[in-house]
C-alpha cells in the first residue's frame, strides 16, 4: 500500500499560537485513522491543511502524490473534489432536500444529470436514508442529517473521507451508528481520517490513532 496522505515536519502558526509543531505522519490508502486529542490540539488544523483551507507555515503536505503546500489557489476546488469532508455541524443546505443536498456534490464535480439518480440512490441506501430522500434537513434527526452529509461526501467517490468531530453534536447511540457507518465505508476500501476527542469511540473501533497534544504528536 502507498501513502495517500503524508505530512513532513509540518508547522502551522496563527500569530503567536502554534497550532501544529513540526508534525510528520503518513496515512496509507484504505486505512482508518483516528486523530484524537483535546480541543485545540490541532486535529482540525490537519484536516484544513489537507483541503487547502489554510497553508502550512513550514513543512510539506502531500495528498495522493501531490504537494498541497505548493498548490495554486485556483486549483484548490479540484483538490477538494477528490476529498469527502464530513463536518461536526453537518454543513448541509437547509432549503434543499436530502437528495438535493447530495446532488449538489455531483453538480459541483460536473457529473451529467442523467447519472445522478442512480448514484444518489446508492449512497442513500448505504447510509440508510433510502426512504427519507425527499425530506428537508429540519425534518430529519441529527444523526440522519449527519448521514446526509456522509452521503454527500461519498457520492463523488472521493479518494479519502475526512470527518471532523462527526459525532460532536450527536447522542451516544447515534454517534456509535455514525462511526459504525464510517467503519463500514472503510471496510469497503475507502480511506478514512476521523478527528474526534471522544475516547469511547476510539476505544470501540480499535483503529490506528494519532494522538495530538498542543500541536505535536503525543505517541
Amino acid at each position, binding site marked *: 500500500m502507498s501513502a495517500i496522505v503524508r505530512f513532513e515536519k509540518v508547522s502551522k502558526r496563527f500569530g503567536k499560537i502554534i497550532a501544529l509543531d513540526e508534525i510528520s505522519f503518513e496515512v496509507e490508502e484504505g486505512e482508518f485513522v483516528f486523530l484524537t486529542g483535546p480541543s485545540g490540539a490541532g486535529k482540525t488544523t490537519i484536516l484544513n491543511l489537507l483541503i487547502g483551507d489554510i497553508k502550512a507555515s513550514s513543512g510539506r503536505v502531500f495528498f495522493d502524490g501531490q504537494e498541497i503546500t505548493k498548490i495554486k489557489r485556483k486549483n484548490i*476546488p479540484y483538490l477538494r*473534489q477528490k476529498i469527502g469532508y464530513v463536518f461536526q455541524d453537518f*454543513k448541509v*443546505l437547509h*432549503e434543499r432536500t436530502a437528495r438535493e443536498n447530495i446532488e449538489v456534490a455531483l453538480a459541483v464535480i460536473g457529473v451529467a*444529470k442523467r447519472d445522478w439518480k442512480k448514484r444518489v440512490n446508492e449512497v442513500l441506501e448505504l447510509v440508510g436514508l433510502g426512504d427519507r430522500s425527499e425530506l428537508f434537513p429540519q425534518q430529519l434527526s441529527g444523526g440522519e442529517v449527519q448521514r446526509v452529509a456522509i452521503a454527500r461526501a461519498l457520492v463523488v467517490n472521493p479518494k479519502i473521507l475526512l470527518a471532523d468531530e462527526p459525532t460532536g453534536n450527536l447522542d451516544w447511540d447515534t454517534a456509535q451508528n455514525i462511526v459504525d457507518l464510517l467503519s463500514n465505508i472503510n471496510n469497503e476500501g475507502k480511506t478514512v481520517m476521523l478527528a474526534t476527542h471522544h475516547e469511547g469511540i476510539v476505544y470501540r473501533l480499535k483503529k490506528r490513532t494519532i494522538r495530538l497534544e498542543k500541536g505535536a504528536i503525543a505517541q
Partner: protein
Amino acid sequence: MLNHLRTSMRNVRRSPFQAVAAISVLALTFFVTTLIVFLVYASSQLINYFETRPQIIAFLKDESDDAGIADLIKDLSSNIKVKGVKFVTKEEALEIYKKATSDNPLLSELLSPDIFPASVEFSVTDLSLAKDIIDEVKRNENVESVGITASLGGESTLGDVVDQLKTITANVRVGGAIVVSVLLATSFMVLFVVIGMRVSMRKEEVDILKLIGATSGFIRLPVLFEAIFYGVVGAFFGWLAGSVVLMYVSPYIISYFQDIPVLPRDPGYFFGMLGALLALEALFGVAIAFVGSFLALTRVSKGK
C-alpha cells in the same frame, strides 16, 4: 449550464420582492430611454425637415428668357452650397396658390397664371451661407426679387428658427443623456445592492459549496444569470411600456405635425426601429447585470 439557470430561477422565486424591485427600476430606466430615443429622433427629423425643404425662392422677371433661366438653374445646381433646385412655372405657382387657399376658393377663382411670377426654389446646405447666396442670386439680371419660405417668417428669422430648433434638439439630447445616465446609474446601484444582498444571504451556502469543491464559476454563474434575468426582463418591460405609449400617441403626433415626418410613417420602419431599440436595451441590461453582479460578488467575497 442548465443547472445554473435552474438555480438562478429558484433564487429569483425565493425573494420575489427583491426581484420585483430590481426589475421595476430597470424597467423605468428603459421606459424613459425608449421615449427619449424617440424624442431625439423626432427633433432630428424636425430639423432635417426645415433644413431640407425649399428655403429660398428667386422670383423671376416676366421678361426673362428661357436661356437666362436655364443659366440661373445651371449655376445654382452646380453650386455645392445649394441643393434641391426646382423651377416653378407661372401655372404651377397658381396651383400652389389655389392649394394654399383651398378653404376659400373665391380667392383664386378669377386669377390667371400671368399674375404669378415664375420662380426658382432652392435650399442651402448650411443656413449660415444663405445671405451670401441670396445676394448673389439678387444680382442676376433675370431675378426680380428673392423671398424666404413664408412659414419661417422672412429672411431675418430663417436662421433663427432653425437655430432655435437646433438648440432645442441639443438640449433634448443633453438632457436626455443626463436623465438616462442618472437612471442607468440608479439601476446599476439597485442591481448591485440586490445581488450583493442575495450573495450575502447565500454566504453560508457559498461557503459550503466552496468546501465541497465548487469552482468560482460554479458559484458565480447562477448569480450572473440571475442579474442577467433582471437586466433583460427589466429592459423588455421598459421597452414594452415605452412602445405602447409611442403607439398610442403616434396618431396624434403625426396628425399634429402633418407633413413633418417626426415619427416614421412606414409601420415596417417604425417597428424595425423598436426592434433595434429592444435589442440595444437588452444588451445594455445584460452589460449592467454583468458588471453589477461581478462587483457585488467581488465585494461580498472580500467580506466588505
